[in-house]
């Protein structure tokens, strides 16, 4: 699964890159409005968001589907001075920016920050409206890839992306297959009142932070076998899941606040929201996290109860789960959720095996 940034780089690459880096530094320093310079990808926690997750483009998307790409692009160009409305990832991005502000206050020279990249399949002509919208809301997004229809996967890797958010489940699945943490975002119908001083991220356990090995047992052998198995293997850490490295990256930034005595006031808070029950299957999860050297701020064991009401109380900026059933429940009660298309959960719906129709080639 997506490892934290690799360190290898050849000496030849380095000198060319250093020149670009210095030139970029000079450019940003020379700007009249003090836009903070984006950090080097290898030092930063890179979050790639698509245009439809950052902004609400539902109407434009419908135009694209009904009338084709040329009409869609023409429409976007015609309206390029009208800012788009916020999309599902917008509150998350603002919360990331707030964490960056706090980090810059404590560590003015550090590049261990969030770096937000716009990663879109859109044609570059639509880019003008996207850039205008980003400027309208004052978002610190300086890097983007507008691939004009080509796959974003290569670019995600080039930016050493730690998390990719999109509305397109195919691209998300492709990213996960390539070892990049990714999730498909869903907007909630209800407005919810999110914190603007603390980034709150909620994770499901199995098949999100951890592998789906235990979920396979539940689906194929039932709950009793599952409890027995988990107790038997309590001390054996679970294998990691697609979002483990993202939790790790968040933890690394959290520790920077703890180091400066800001634990109480830490602007990042993480939650585990799992259907496991504390008594019969919870220990293995906590011991696994401990063996990885990871902390999670609050672990909530629901023992099968619905996640929606609890998430409503937590009010995270984003909630990751592998099962659409939970995503829908969360959405109904106002939580912005993101589906992680990984593991055996994809073949089931509400406990029943989904009959796959014959794939049309």
């Amino acid at each position: 699964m997506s490892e934290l940034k690799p360190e290898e780089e050849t000496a030849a690459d380095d000198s060319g890159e250093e020149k670009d880096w210095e030139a970029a530094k000079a450019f940003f320093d020379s700007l009249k409005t003090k836009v903070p310079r984006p950090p080097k990808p290898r030092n930063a926690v890179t979050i790639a968001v698509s245009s439809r997750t950052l902004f609400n483009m539902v109407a434009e998307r419908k135009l694209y589907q009904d009338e084709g790409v040329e009409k869609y692009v023409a429409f976007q160009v015609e309206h390029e001075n009208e800012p788009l409305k916020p999309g599902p990832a917008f509150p998350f991005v603002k919360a990331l920016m707030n964490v960056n502000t706090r980090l810059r206050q404590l560590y003015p020279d550090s590049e261990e920050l969030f770096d937000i990249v716009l990663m879109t399949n859109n044609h570059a002509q639509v880019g003008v409206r996207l850039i205008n919208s980003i400027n309208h809301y004052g978002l610190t997004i300086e890097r983007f890839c507008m691939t004009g229809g080509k796959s974003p996967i290569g670019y995600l890797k080039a930016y050493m992306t730690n998390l990719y958010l999109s509305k397109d489940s195919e691209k998300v699945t492709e990213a996960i297959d390539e070892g990049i943490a990714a999730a498909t975002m869903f907007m909630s119908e209800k407005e919810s009142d999110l914190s603007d001083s603390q980034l709150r991220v909620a994770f499901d356990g199995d098949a999100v932070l951890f592998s789906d090995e235990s979920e396979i047992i539940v689906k194929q052998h039932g709950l009793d076998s599952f409890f027995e198995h988990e107790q038997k293997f309590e001390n054996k850490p679970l294998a990691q899941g697609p979002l483990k490295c993202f939790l790790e990256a968040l933890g690394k930034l959290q520790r920077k606040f703890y180091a400066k005595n800001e634990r109480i006031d830490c602007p990042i808070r993480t939650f585990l929201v799992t259907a496991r029950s504390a008594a019969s299957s919870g220990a293995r999860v906590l011991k696994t996290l401990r063996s990885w050297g990871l902390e999670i701020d609050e672990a909530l064991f629901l023992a099968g109860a619905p996640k929606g009401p609890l998430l409503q109380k937590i009010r995270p900026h984003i909630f990751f789960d592998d099962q659409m059933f939970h995503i829908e429940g969360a959405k109904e009660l106002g939580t912005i959720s993101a589906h992680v298309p990984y593991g055996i959960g994809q073949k089931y719906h509400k406990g029943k095996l989904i009959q796959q129709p014959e794939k049309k080639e």
Partner: protein
Amino acid sequence: MVSTVQNSDVKQKDEDQAVVVAVTFAAVFDAEAEDDRDVYRLGVALPLLQVLQRVNERLLEENPVEHQLFDIILITTETRQQQQSSSIINSTRHHGLEVGRFCFSSEDDFIESLAHNNVQLFLTTDGNEALQATQQGVPSALLDKNSASCPSDQLRVVLCQDATIQPNADSSGASKKSAQSFLTLLGQIRQKFGMFNSPLCFTIVTSCGGKDSCCSALKSLRSLGVSVDEAYCLGGAPRGPILSILRPHFLLSDGFSQLEG
């Protein structure tokens, strides 16, 4: 003394409307390697020649009487090459390259030939030649071993916004104007195809500047009639990985970065 020879294997293009692209001998052929029959092996420009041909084919599919096609000429830039004219012609015909004519010049007069043949883009593997041509108002681009592994189904033109990328950047008035008119021509060709499945693709890469410089470049190019397909704003991030995904046939830099104001 320059001599120009037509390639009788290839249909000649319309003098007024064709977009003339000159490629040097050293780019078309691997000058060091000759096989037994005195035929040169193909060099780094092969994918580019194939893709220019592909664009022509698609243009003719859209409009069978299209005149605004790419017209490729092979130009020699050294006396030694100038003397190999028959081998060069033979090798070209042997490989079936869509080269319209040959321009046999030397290091002293190849620039003149470029002007004389109304060349709108000069492609070479030699940095000095590119610099000279640019200074004389002919947009040039360098080909290298990376060019050899470019795709041959889509012409990928990458415009780099920061002078640090193109080693022979030159900001004289002549070079800017000619680069702009070349871009306008390419823009016209691009317009003949739809958004998807086009044999020609324009990409902007802003290496060191911010999103606003990229945005104004998009708009300036639009005013030249160039509708950019892809845009990448790197903000100082390493460009190597991005360029290796883009696989441009050639990189252009000057001529559009200072269009505004």
